């Protein structure tokens, strides 16, 4: 059987991620596929620390650490600088957390997407501001505990639908991915690498520290998120052609996904049902768009 995940490693051990970090797995795969001819723009997020303190680095490609809201435009600026020097073939990735993407960085992402700048934007979504110690972001799901949405006032309302926002820009390639399905993720990385223009990958990256689960369950949760239809895997070409890349024959109940996570343990039966209904409704909407 041919391996669909490149064997070579670019990222090195010795980085500073927590045990079981979905975000560090994501980077490992991204660099495997994108290779050495790649540059990274990383804003404030866990990865601003994970890469290692000065003078260390664990990514082995040029990395520019930038301000919270500038991952996308920093990548655009790097790409422009490379292009005027005849280095058009170098890939530029903006690699940001959900806070830097769904919240503070949204304006710069929208700008770069509208201009169709030739960069790949990857959000490793751990569904809260984990680097500052678990504060809610607009990617935090309904029902979740965070330090700014305590149990008495847990997050009400759904997470922002970033993929739809990006698709509405009619960018050439948008996709969801999960670290639980690395082959699917790597295929999408390959497509992004080979597509001109603005590419957006939304990677679900479970966080044992912030979600309050045993680190050994990272992959299990990353799979369950897909199997429950909480985080369906699909791609959108040119913002209009939707294709599911991982079909779920019979979706598992959401409580299977929630039960491992301390951040949801306060939810009563009726709130779990509310969550379930919301997921089914969302998936129903997505199904009408799938080709």
């Amino acid at each position, binding site marked *: 059987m041919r391996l669909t995940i490149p064997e070579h490693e670019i990222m090195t051990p010795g980085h500073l991620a927590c045990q079981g970090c979905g975000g560090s797995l994501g980077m490992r795969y991204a660099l495997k596929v994108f290779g050495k001819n790649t540059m990274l723009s990383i804003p404030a997020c866990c990865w601003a620390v994970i890469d290692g303190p000065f003078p260390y680095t664990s990514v082995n490609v*040029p*990395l*520019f650490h*930038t301000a919270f809201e500038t991952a996308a435009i920093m*990548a655009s600026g790097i790409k*422009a*600088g*490379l292009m*005027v020097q005849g280095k058009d073939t170098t890939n530029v990735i903006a690699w940001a957390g959900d806070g830097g993407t769904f919240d503070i960085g949204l304006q710069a992402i929208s700008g770069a997407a509208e201009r169709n700048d030739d960069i790949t934007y990857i959000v490793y979504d751990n569904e809260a501001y984990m680097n500052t110690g678990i504060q809610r972001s607009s990617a935090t799901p309904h029902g979740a505990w965070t330090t700014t949405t305590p149990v008495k006032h847990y997050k009400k309302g759904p997470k922002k639908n970033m993929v739809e926002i990006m698709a509405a820009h009619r960018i050439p390639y948008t996709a969801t991915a999960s670290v639980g399905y690395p082959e699917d993720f790597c295929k999408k990385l390959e497509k992004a690498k080979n597509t001109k223009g603005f590419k957006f990958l939304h990677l679900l990256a479970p966080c044992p520290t912030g979600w309050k689960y045993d680190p050994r369950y990272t992959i299990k949760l990353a799979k369950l998120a897909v199997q429950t239809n909480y985080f369906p895997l699909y791609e959108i070409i040119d913002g209009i052609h939707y294709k599911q890349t991982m079909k779920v024959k019979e979706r598992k109940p959401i409580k299977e996904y929630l039960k491992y996570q301390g951040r949801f343990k306060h939810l009563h039966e009726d709130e779990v049902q509310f969550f379930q209904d919301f997921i089914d409704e969302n998936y129903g909407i997505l199904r009408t768009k799938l080709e």
Partner: protein
Amino acid sequence: MKKTMMGNYAASWGAQLARVQVIAAYPITPQTLIVEKLSDIVADGELDAKFIKVESEHSAMAACIGASATGARAYTATSAQGLALMHEMLHWAALARLPIVMTNVNRAMAPGWSIWADQNDSLSQRDTGWMQIYASSAQEILDSTLIGYKVSEKVLLPTLISFDAFFLSHTMEVVDMPEIELIDKYLPPYKPEYKMDVNDPRSFGALTDEQYYYEFRYKMQKAMDEAVDVIKEDGKEYEKITGRAYSLIHPYRCEDADMILVTSGTIAETTNVAVDELRAEGKKVGNLRIRVIRPYPKKEILEVVKGVKKLAVIDRNISPGYSGIFSQELKSALYNEVDIPVRSYIAGLGGRDVKIEDIKDMANDTLKNDAPNDLIWKGVKI
């Protein structure tokens, strides 16, 4: 070749002559003409650059930083609110030691909405680690852009070139455009020692603990110190090819002066005329224009003012709760060195015209008053 042009276009053509490679900009009055002209220049193929039409000034500066980090020559222009929005990235550019050059058309901060001349926008950025130049003619805008890149690329600090809204941005003046062949020799392509390079992968701006950060700041200060001489040297070299001399300060009729007016921007040009008229009346006054406020030319200023009896500073800016900013800077330079009374005037905020008569009033007021004064509001209507 001599051309008649607005101050704004002198900035555009300065950027073209500097062969900037990446431009990222956002419109704001009164700067907009600069980037409109550059859009034409790039679209017409007269400049081989990539122009990113960003969605905010914050992004404009971020894009310049990214481009500069790869070794490209980057340029942007802004005003007032736009410069304030960039503030975070101004620190970023300077601490990343990237030689970006930016034009800022000095405009008053809102509210109330004002598009007219006032230096509070750029002086609010004084401590970001950018070298700051205040130009007083269209010619100087163009020349400063070229000298700016040369200096910045040597000392690895960014340069901000500011000039007054409308009095200079939209006023036509004769500007001598240097031949591109001369400029290419003066300002060779930017070749940084360190840059983003896939063959030499490095991490830039990583998490830095107190073992290193403190020394980063020390090195930045050393670069600022070094810049004083570099600005002089590169100004002299520029004089050799164009005949136009630039330094950090520009004294006018100061040699035998009893009293010196300390000015900046377009007020300095008007002050030269006022000085001529006062001299004709037998009053021994001079005008010291501060062209560069960072690095601060303390030694150079002291050399000019050490023999005078009195100083008067005219500030088109105010640090609310204290006084004019050029005045504070001057007084801190004099302290421990010489004892000269300083009278400090605020004038022309929000674009209010400062006429020759106004300047003569301030000069005469200083001549007849021996007491220093930290804050005199010239012409305030109360």
